[in-house]
């Protein structure tokens, strides 16, 4: 049967592809690798669709699948290469200036720990609630909160330089 392609109705996953691409780009930066992650996620989601609980949110479920695919990729990659660990003293501030601000932010984001990148973007960009982010990442909500706090502080350091004000008040 032939039919005009532009009249093709959408698969239920389709409306979530732009959001998945945005999140993947935050995780991997490189466009091709990010789209590879989206493709792997969609394929896995199609294969695992019978496990999708019908009363839950499809978008959150797809992000959960992406998280799992990404974590598996990181794990298998870290088996092959030496993991580089940052500590704060090694971090050099990104360059300042309005023109390069977004470029600097992208650089800073790339230098965060993967779990920090995830909470920052799931909450700050994808607008998931803390509860939803906890489900997507399969961690307790307290872990989401502490990662978010650390992620924001580290991002501040990376963007503003090592002379950032004391970030955690002593209570």
């Amino acid at each position, binding site marked *: 049967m032939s039919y005009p392609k532009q009249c093709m109705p959408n698969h239920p996953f389709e409306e979530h592809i732009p959001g998945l691409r945005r999140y993947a780009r935050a995780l991997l930066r490189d466009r091709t690798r990010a789209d590879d992650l989206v*493709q792997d996620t969609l394929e896995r989601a199609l294969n695992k669709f019978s496990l999708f609980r019908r009363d839950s949110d499809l978008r959150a479920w797809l992000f959960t699948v992406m998280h799992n695919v990404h974590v598996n990729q990181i794990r298998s990659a870290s088996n092959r290469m030496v993991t580089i660990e940052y500590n704060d003293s090694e971090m050099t501030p990104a360059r300042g200036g309005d023109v390069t601000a977004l470029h600097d*932010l992208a650089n800073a984001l790339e230098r965060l720990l993967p779990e920090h990148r995830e909470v920052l973007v799931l909450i700050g*960009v994808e607008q998931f609630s803390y509860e939803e982010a906890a489900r997507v990442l399969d961690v307790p909500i307290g872990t989401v909160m502490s990662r978010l706090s650390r992620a924001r502080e580290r991002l501040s350091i990376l963007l503003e330089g090592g002379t950032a004000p004391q*970030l955690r008040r002593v209570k």
Partner: protein
Amino acid sequence: MTEKPRAVSDEELHAYVDGRLAAERVAELEAWLAVDAEAAERVRAFQAQNRALQALLDPVLNEPVPPRLTETVQRPRRALPLRAAAAIAWLALGGIAGYALHDWRTPPVVTAQFAERAAVAHVVYAAEVQHPVEVTAEQESHLVQWLSKRLGKELRTPDFTPFGYQLVGGRLLPGDKGPAAQFMYQDSHGARLTLYVSAAGEGAQSSAFRYEEEAGTRVLYWVDRDLGFALVGELDRTRLMDVAHVAYQALNF
């Protein structure tokens, strides 16, 4: 004004930044920020981070989606749990029944694919509270005309009221061989039953009823000339078979 605002926790600062702070606490927190310059500065910095991250990443939403991604969800699937289960079932049947060899050699690959799609469509849309259908039963004749036109076949909506199911409406979906139609029915308890119709593909032969079950979702499907039909629901197999007989008679023209 003489009362000193209650101190805020780190969690509350972040919740405020993300618009997730309980409404009754917002005023208190803002009062605190007015006197704690350091906390106020952190809030401003974190809000700026969110805005900057959005500015960095939101443009991705406006990029054209690479065709390979759209094709991933639209192309017929190769290995699927339902199909794997179906294949095993058919192979097992081969040991018992003589006709099974003929049976699994020919139509299953074609039929199982639309049955899988029917099951997925059921799981997605039967759970939908706000928009279970595109066109409601109030416009039944329009619905049937529209979907008939899109599938290039005269369709009908079988009457399942003897089983307690009323038509809710229907929608157009992507099938593996072109457009597919989904009609949704619902009983007085809100349990939903869907009838999925799509082209069966070149060389498909009319088939007997076949039954698959996965994760509580039951699919009864058959091919009638060039159309594939699948009834999907949670009702038990015998009852689903009864409904399928009614559907088969109503649609066999």
